[in-house]
C-alpha cells in the first residue's frame, strides 16, 4: 500500500504563495519520489528535468516579483506518452517510435505550461493507447500502486498510477474506449473524459480519430475542474474542436445537486458485474439520492452491442491512422531491398502483437466485400447507441453506472484472451461512441482493498454538470463509501 498523495493544486499554490517551498524545490521533491517509486511502478517512460526546472524557475520569478499566478503555477504534472512534447521523446509505448522526438507541442501541453504547470515527464501506456491493462506497452507493464500484483488499467495506466502514487499532482491521459476512466477506477483516482471536441486533439498521436479525447487525472474534483478549465476550449488547429464557451467549472462545481435527475440504466447492472462493485455503486447512488437527487430507472437497450461496435469502428480508424508508420518519415526503419519490403519489415519489427491484431481487424472490416457487413453496420449501431444517450438525456441530467465490471485484475490474468480483455471496457465504450463526457470517481473499495469506480455521464458539453455531481459526491464522503 502506497502513501496517499499529499499535494493538491490548492496546497501547491498555498505553499508557493506563503513561500514554504519554491516551484524548483517542489519539482525536485517530486523527482526524488519518482526516483524512489518508479523502478517498481514503471509509470514514467521519460523525465524532462531540464524543461521542468526552467518552467519552475519562471514560476519562482513570478512569485519573487509579486505577479499574479496562473491557475497551475508550479504544479507538477505528468503526460501520457501519446501526447506530443517538443524536444521530449514521445514513444506511444511503441518500439516503432522508440527514438521519436516531436518537433512541436500539443495544444494541451501549450495550455498547461502557459497556466504555469511543471511537466515532469511522460507516462507509460499501452502501445498506441490500445489496451485495458497497460500490459501492451513495449516498455513493460505499469504496476497498480494500490496493489503491486495488479494492473493499473489502461491504456493511460502510467498517468493514473503516477497520480495515485503521489508522483504527480495531476496528469493527462487519453480516452478512446475507456482509457482514462477505467485506469482511474482501478487506481482509485478521479479521471475525466471530456466531450468529443471539448479539448483539442492537436498533437495527440492518433489511434481512432472519431473517439480519441484528452482528459485529466487528479486526486480531487476541484483539481480535475482546474485542469479542465485550462485545457478545454476551441483550437483552430483541430478541425473537430468545438466553438463552445467553456463554463466556469469551479463555480458550477459547487452548485447544489438537489433536484437533479440521475438515470440508472438497468443494462449496466446485469450479468458479469462483480457483486462488490455493484454493492458499492448502488451505495454511491443512494448517497446522491440522500443529497436530493432523483433516481430515474432507465433502459439503454443497445448497451450490449457497444463492445462489438467499438472494436470495428476503433480498429478501422486505427488501421488507417497507423498506416503512416512505414519507416519513411519518422521512427524506426528496417532496411529492405524494395520500398514494400522496407514497409513490411519496419512494421513487423516495430509494432507489438495487440497493435498488429487491431490493424488486421480494422483492415478486414474495411476490405472489399466486408465493408457493409462490418464497418457500415457498426456505424449504424453507433447511431443507435448515441440515440440511447440522446433519449436518456431527455429524461435525466446525468447517467450513473459502474466504471468497470470488476476491480483491477492481476497482471497476466487476461493477456492470453484478447476478447476477454476487451470486455473490461464494457461500460465505458458506450459514452465513447456517443461522444458524451464521462468521469470515473472513487466509490469505496472491495473487502480486499481494491478501488472501485463509479461513472457519471452527462449530455454533450455537460462537463459542469458532471463536476457538480462528482463534487457533491466527494464532499459527502462518497469516495470512501
Amino acid at each position, binding site marked *: 500500500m502506497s502513501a496517499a498523495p499529499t499535494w493538491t493544486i490548492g496546497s501547491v499554490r498555498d505553499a508557493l504563495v506563503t513561500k514554504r517551498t519554491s516551484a524548483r524545490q517542489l519539482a525536485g521533491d517530486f523527482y526524488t519520489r519518482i526516483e524512489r517509486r518508479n523502478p517498481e511502478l514503471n509509470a514514467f517512460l521519460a523525465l524532462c528535468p531540464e524543461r521542468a526546472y526552467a518552467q519552475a524557475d519562471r514560476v519562482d520569478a513570478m512569485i519573487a516579483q509579486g505577479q499574479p499566478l496562473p491557475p497551475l503555477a508550479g504544479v507538477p504534472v505528468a503526460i501520457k506518452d501519446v501526447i506530443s512534447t517538443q524536444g521530449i521523446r514521445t514513444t506511444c509505448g511503441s518500439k516503432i517510435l522508440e527514438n521519436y522526438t516531436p518537433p512541436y507541442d500539443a495544444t494541451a501541453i501549450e495550455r498547461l505550461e502557459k497556466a504555469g504547470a511543471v511537466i515532469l515527464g511522460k507516462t507509460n501506456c499501452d502501445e498506441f493507447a490500445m489496451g485495458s491493462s497497460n500490459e501492451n506497452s513495449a516498455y513493460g507493464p505499469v504496476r497498480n500502486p494500490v496493489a503491486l500484483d495488479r494492473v493499473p488499467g489502461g491504456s493511460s495506466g502510467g498517468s493514473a498510477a503516477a497520480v495515485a502514487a503521489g508522483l504527480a499532482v495531476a496528469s493527462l491521459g487519453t480516452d478512446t474506449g475507456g482509457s482514462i476512466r477505467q485506469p482511474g477506477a482501478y487506481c482509485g483516482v478521479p479521471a475525466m473524459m471530456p466531450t468529443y471536441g471539448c479539448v483539442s486533439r492537436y498533437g495527440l498521436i492518433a489511434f481512432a480519430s472519431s473517439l480519441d479525447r484528452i482528459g485529466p487525472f487528479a486526486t480531487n474534483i476541484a483539481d480535475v475542474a482546474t485542469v479542465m478549465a485550462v485545457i478545454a476550449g476551441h483550437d483552430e488547429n483541430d478541425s473537430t474542436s468545438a466553438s463552445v464557451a467553456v463554463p466556469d467549472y469551479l463555480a458550477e462545481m459547487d452548485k447544489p445537486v438537489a433536484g437533479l435527475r440521475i438515470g440508472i440504466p438497468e443494462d449496466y447492472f446485469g450479468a458479469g458485474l462483480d457483486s462488490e462493485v455493484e454493492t458499492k455503486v448502488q451505495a454511491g447512488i443512494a448517497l446522491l439520492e440522500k443529497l436530493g437527487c432523483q433516481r430515474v430507472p432507465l433502459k439503454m437497450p443497445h448497451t450490449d452491442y457497444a463492445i462489438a461496435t467499438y472494436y*470495428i469502428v476503433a480498429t478501422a480508424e486505427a488501421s488507417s491512422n497507423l498506416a503512416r508508420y512505414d519507416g*519513411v518519415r519518422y521512427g524506426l526503419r528496417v532496411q529492405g531491398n524494395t520500398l514494400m519490403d522496407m*514497409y513490411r519489415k519496419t512494421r513487423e519489427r516495430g509494432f507489438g502483437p495487440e497493435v498488429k491484431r487491431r490493424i488486421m481487424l480494422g*483492415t478486414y472490416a474495411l476490405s472489399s466485400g466486408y465493408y457493409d457487413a462490418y464497418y457500415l*453496420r457498426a456505424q449504424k*449501431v453507433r*447511431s443507435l447507441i448515441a440515440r440511447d444517450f440522446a433519449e436518456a438525456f431527455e429524461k435525466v441530467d446525468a447517467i450513473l453506472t459502474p466504471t468497470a465490471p470488476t476491480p483491477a485484475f492481476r497482471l497476466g490474468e487476461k493477456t492470453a484472451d484478447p476478447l476477454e480483455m476487451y470486455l473490461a471496457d464494457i461500460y465505458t465504450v458506450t459514452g465513447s461512441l456517443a461522444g458524451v463526457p464521462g468521469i470515473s470517481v472513487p466509490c469505496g473499495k472491495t473487502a480486499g482493498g481494491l478501488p472501485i469506480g463509479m461513472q457519471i455521464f452527462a449530455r454533450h*458539453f455537460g462537463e459542469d454538470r458532471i463536476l457538480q455531481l462528482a463534487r457533491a459526491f466527494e464532499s459527502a464522503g462518497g469516495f470512501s463509501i
Partner: protein
Amino acid sequence: MKISREDVLRVARLAHLELAPEEVETYRGQLDEILAYIGKLEELDVSYVAPMTQMRPRGARGARQAPGGATGPEGDAAAAGTEPELRDDVVVPCDVAEAVLAEAPDAAKPFFRVPKVIDR
C-alpha cells in the same frame, strides 16, 4: 469459422504487415473469436438507421452555414451539428522542414530517402 489462413495472409498483405508462420495461426484463431463475437451486431435491424459518420456532437455551437445557403433556417446539417467548422484559409509561416527532416531515418535535404522505386 469466419476467417481462414488465407484471409489472415490477405489482410496482412493489405496492411503491409509481415507475419511469422506461427503468428498466422495465432491471429487466425483470435480474429475468428473476435469476429464471432462481433457477429452479434447482426441481431439488430439497422435497415432504417443512418450511419454515424461525423462526430460533431449536438450542442456544438458556432458551426457556420454552408455556402449557398441551406434549406431551413439553420440547415439540416447545422441543426444536427454535423457540419464541419471551417476557419479562414490564412497563410501562416511554417518553418519546420528542418526539424521534421531531422526525425527521418534517412534524409537528404529537402528529401526523405527511400529504396529505389523505379528501375530505369
